[in-house]
């Protein structure tokens, strides 16, 4: 199936989970990554159980924050 990851169209296996996509994409420090699918943010802890669908648009976002 075709999905879009960080703005790039990709062909991936049917039934791919978000956790598997994170591994496939070699996402750095995934424990600090927030995932959105079609502009909806996933709850943390649901990456293993969330199965991607044809046409999904996935973004990996790093928390952007800091302090003095």
């Amino acid at each position, binding site marked *: 199936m075709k999905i879009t990851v960080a703005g790039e169209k990709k062909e991936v296996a049917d039934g791919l989970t978000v956790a598997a996509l994170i591994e496939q994409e070699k996402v*750095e*420090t995934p424990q600090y990554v927030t995932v*959105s699918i079609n*502009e909806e943010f996933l709850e943390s802890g649901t990456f293993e159980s969330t199965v991607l669908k044809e046409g999904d648009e996935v973004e990996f*976002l790093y*928390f952007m*924050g*800091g*302090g*003095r």
Partner: protein
Amino acid sequence: MKITIKRSDFNSIYEHAISVAPEEACGLIAGTDNEDGSRDIQKVYILTNIDHTNEHFTIDPKDQLKTIKEMRENGLKPLGNWHSHPESPSRPSEEDKRLANDSKASYLILSLMEEGNPVLNAFHVETIDGEKTVRKEELIIKEDE
């Protein structure tokens, strides 16, 4: 790494940071990566610090997502973020380092601690052997064409 920012973009973030001080100001940067390994910031985005304090900043992930999509629509790449230190130097604090987890990002810090003399530096932060390692990037403020 060499990274450039336009004078007008520098002025934009400085003016905004002054206007919201003593709260920390923040936003994202977008542009292009060049073949020689340098990068050019072509647009700065001023976003809301949802913490509204002088001690911390957080960018709302919804704002972040919307801005990243806008960058792509304009043919630009997300290059990192910027934030101000109203009362401290232009270097990553321990909290900045703890929360810097994207080794592809440039982290820009604008210090306002000396009135009338803003200092902007760019940093690369990477975790090596479990330790956060900070490297200063060569930031060049380019006069607008």
